């Protein structure tokens, strides 16, 4: 297919330039001199501006994954229930009875820092499109957010804008936002993280893919018109921030959730017919990457008449049309003759519809503007020559153990109240009450629990369990262990509601990969994710990489956010709230020597002792699985009345969360009341309760599994009591837990 001139030749001395392109223009487009030489070799001539723009976005880190590809390939992506792993718009898993769950997580970090409302809103819009492009109706959104220190002067404004933007978009399109996580840390002062996840449900036999097929088939543009929004957004998303980038503000994309809602309905309506051969949303790098990917995956060529693209502004150029990141647009290949049917659907929903091109057998992308060819590129060589780097990396040195002196000098009631009311430990109600988490009427477990539980409309006995997790302070200390922990925690959160964890999506947020230490974090995180996925049978089916999260050379703490999806039978699910007084409280999965031991890198160490030191708690993946399987069996058997996994803040914070959710206190009897026992963050632990009548059944089942079930107390009263010492009342704990975020935001 590729003609002789397209074969990459060996780099020459000084490559040719044309169309006003200079080495400076090449650099502005984010291409290295070597990459430019490859462009010239592929074309057999100098590129014009339009072509240079196309290479620039296609080879950007954001689109080409050039730094990460080598390592992403190592992730486990298969299981009998995986229908589609990474490589399509979203991952797909089988959830029984002919249904499939379609999901993915994606970052919109830099845009959200520049314009928090629109940045976050368009992030939600983009991830929704990835999911309904595949034929799935979006049924839930989640979001993983990292902000700078509360004291940083920008933080409040960013929190307020990002949350309003996520809500503004999701609420309007009518998809419930059911979960997420939020951290505050000075390491994110200059680079916040906004990761959004969408989960959809589709008939398993009616999924839509992006590979174009059918020479001569029409290529159709639908949705919103194209303006000059976010031109070069994809290259920006891959460039490090510098002090003056706030000045060089690019044209910000403004989201239009109303149009997105119409687009969802129109696409799903057309997908119920046989009109669509292939479909691809126009995300980062807009028309360029969507048309390129469709043609490339189908092994075909494509011709586009750019003057037929619906335009919002006058005097737009082919360059702008190819690179615009205007939102709420889709590209489709239709079955021949289906144009009228499709047009009628999109006109009913008052959306743009235009036939802008055709598929060809040339293997080339040919762009025309009022009949004249303005770009002509070979597709395969461009895709294949897309750079892939094996960047040098250094493993992250293992931190020395933390100085834990003073840990037991703090009275536990004070420590508990502080942990449950600190920025990372406080309730995020102020945030999720701005999200419509109930629309569609299927939200069985609302935000505030371990995992959200969303009933399947077409299989109403079952529900999806959904969570996002990552603890950046663990990953920073030990990327391998920290990333494994993120996967394990997601798996654990799904297990805690009774669900069988099925698959995950990841969002890898890191600094500049050209620095070996940062690249080492990334490599380590991939290793950790791989280990945990294999041990837990929990494959990666989709994901996203966001690199260059740095400002003035300062990188963010490495944050591989994990979005987990599981399936639960509604009658066999459980929540974390204490249900009644007099229930027996059990701790499962604790180490033999004590209820808890590991204070290094804990929330306690950071918040109470002011130290971020030491290695993270080790995750024993074999034990993780054994304990989780036991917990799921206990819930399925109906033997426990509440279940919660232990994470940030350890045992006492976990018990306090259960007490607050249920409005019932608890008296604990532990080996001692040392900080490590109460606040240690040992992994694979759960707290469950059982009625006195069922407590023996819990013990019997644990014994059969070869795992101890420690009786650690009983639910009672309106306060927390440890070894006879009365701690804070629920009222005081609630004030601390619920008070911090609203108080901070009002400040």
């Amino acid at each position, binding site marked *: 297919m590729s003609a002789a001139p397209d074969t990459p030749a060996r780099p020459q001395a000084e490559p040719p330039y044309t169309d006003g392109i200079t080495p400076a223009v090449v650099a502005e487009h984010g291409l290295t001199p070597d990459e430019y030489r490859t462009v010239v070799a592929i074309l057999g001539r100098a590129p014009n501006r339009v072509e240079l723009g196309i290479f620039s976005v296609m080879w950007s880190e954001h689109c080409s994954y050039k730094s990460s590809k080598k390592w992403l390939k190592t992730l486990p992506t298969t299981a009998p229930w995986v229908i589609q792993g990474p490589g399509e718009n979203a991952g797909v898993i089988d959830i029984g009875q002919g249904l499939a769950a379609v999901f993915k997580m994606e970052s919109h970090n830099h845009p959200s820092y520049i314009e928090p409302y629109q940045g976050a809103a368009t992030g939600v819009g983009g991830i929704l499109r990835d999911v309904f492009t595949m034929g799935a109706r979006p049924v839930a959104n989640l979001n993983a957010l990292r902000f700078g220190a509360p004291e940083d002067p920008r933080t409040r404004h960013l929190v307020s804008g990002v949350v309003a933007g996520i809500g503004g978009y999701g609420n309007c399109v009518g998809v419930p936002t059911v979960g997420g996580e939020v951290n505050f840390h000075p390491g994110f002062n200059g680079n916040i993280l906004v990761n959004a996840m969408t989960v959809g449900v589709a008939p398993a036999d009616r999924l839509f893919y992006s590979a174009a097929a059918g020479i001569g088939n029409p290529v159709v543009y639908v949705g919103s018109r194209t303006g000059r929004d976010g031109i070069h957004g994809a290259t920006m998303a891959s460039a490090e921030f510098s002090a003056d980038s706030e000045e060089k503000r690019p044209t910000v994309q403004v989201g239009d959730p109303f149009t997105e809602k119409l687009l969802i309905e129109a696409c799903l309506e057309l997908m119920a017919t046989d009109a669509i051969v292939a479909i691809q949303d126009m995300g980062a790098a807009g028309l360029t990457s969507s048309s390129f990917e469709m043609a490339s995956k189908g092994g075909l060529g494509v011709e586009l008449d750019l003057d037929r693209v619906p335009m919002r502004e006058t005097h737009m150029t082919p360059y702008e049309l190819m690179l615009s990141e205007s939102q709420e647009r889709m590209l489709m290949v239709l079955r021949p003759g289906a144009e009228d049917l499709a047009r009628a659907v999109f006109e009913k929903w008052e959306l743009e519809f235009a036939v802008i091109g055709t598929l060809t057998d040339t293997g080339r992308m040919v762009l025309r503007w009022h009949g004249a060819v303005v770009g002509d590129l070979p597709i395969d060589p461009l895709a294949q020559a897309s750079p892939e780097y094996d960047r040098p990396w250094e493993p992250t040195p293992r931190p020395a153990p933390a100085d834990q002196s003073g840990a037991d000098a703090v009275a536990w009631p004070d420590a508990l109240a502080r942990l449950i009311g600190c920025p990372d430990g406080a309730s995020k109600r102020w945030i999720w009450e*701005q*999200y419509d*988490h*109930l*629309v569609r*009427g299927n939200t069985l477990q609302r935000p505030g629990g371990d995992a959200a539980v969303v009933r399947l409309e077409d299989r109403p006995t079952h529900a999806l369990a959904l969570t996002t997790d990552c603890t950046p302070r663990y990953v920073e200390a030990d990327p391998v262990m920290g990333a494994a922990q993120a996967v394990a925690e997601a798996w654990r959160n799904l297990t805690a509601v009774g669900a069988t964890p099925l698959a995950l999506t990841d969002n890898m947020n890191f600094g500049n990969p050209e620095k070996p230490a940062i690249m080492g974090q990334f490599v380590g995180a991939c290793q950790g994710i791989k280990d945990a996925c294999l041990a837990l049978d929990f494959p990666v089916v989709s994901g996203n990489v966001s690199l260059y999260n740095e400002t003035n050379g300062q990188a963010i703490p490495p944050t591989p956010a994990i979005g987990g999806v599981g399936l639960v039978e509604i009658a066999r699910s459980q929540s974390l709230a204490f249900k009644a007084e007099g229930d027996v409280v059990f701790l499962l999965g604790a180490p033999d020597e004590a209820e808890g031991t590991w204070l290094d890198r804990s929330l306690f160490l950071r918040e109470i002792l002011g130290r971020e030191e030491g290695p993270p708690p080790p995750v024993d993946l074999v034990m993780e699985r054994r304990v989780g399987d036991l917990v799921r069996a206990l819930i399925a058997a109906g033997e426990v009345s509440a279940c919660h996994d232990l994470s940030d803040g350890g045992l006492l914070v976990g018990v306090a969360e259960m007490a607050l959710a249920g409005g019932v206190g608890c008296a604990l009897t532990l080996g001692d009341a040392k900080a490590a026992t109460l606040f240690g963050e040992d992994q694979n632990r759960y707290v469950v309760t059982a009625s006195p009548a069922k407590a023996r059944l819990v013990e019997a089942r644990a014994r059969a599994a070869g795992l101890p079930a420690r009786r650690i107390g009983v639910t009672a009263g309106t306060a927390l009591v440890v070894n006879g010492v009365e701690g804070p009342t629920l009222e005081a704990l609630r004030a601390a837990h619920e008070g911090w975020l609203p108080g901070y935001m009002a400040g």
Partner: protein
Amino acid sequence: MHAAILLFPGTNRERDMARALEVAGAPAPVFVWHRETTLPAGLDLVILPGGFSYGDYLRSGAMAARSPILEAVRRFADQGGMVLGVCNGFQILTEAGLLPGALMRNRDLRFICRCVGLRVERTDTPFTTRYAAGAVLSVPVAHHDGNYTADDDTLARLEGEGRVAFRYCDAAGVVSDATNPNGSRGNIAGIVSENRRVLGMMPHPENLVEPALGGIDGRPLFESLLEALP
């Protein structure tokens, strides 16, 4: 009972509403597109569900209130037909002039999604017969523009004629500024028309009709309808 659920571009709680009817034992409703100029024959209830018609751009409900189907709804209501508008449906009904007043941006300018206390002010409307007088419900709200306002005369008339159907209150039924989630005048959460056959309300009874969803406080509203329209 023959119910129709209207669909505007941006409507998003139509399925929730249909399921609530189903759970209450009502026959399946028909869906009617906003460009229609007539309602199906033999209808006895028209429902305007929640959502963001036209994105809530310009003013919530403003553009939907000018769609062709609203003329048919107006005629239907004039002839004594029953109409229920929830959330965006309430906003559309006020914009269309079928109910008095207006719904403005929430007092603290933020979208609110949470369960609120709701006091049933009247049980002699066809929407509320299955509630006990003075009953206190816990029902979710999910809105950005739920701040009910009307001029003093209108408000006095609504109160005087006993047309306030629901008020925001605490768990004990006490109505105060502290229990007002959005700044509505008089803590008004829902009002009825003069003939009590048109109800507009901001909270979502349709989202609380099954124990699995966290409660059934919304269900009696649909059961009342079924009783009124056997």
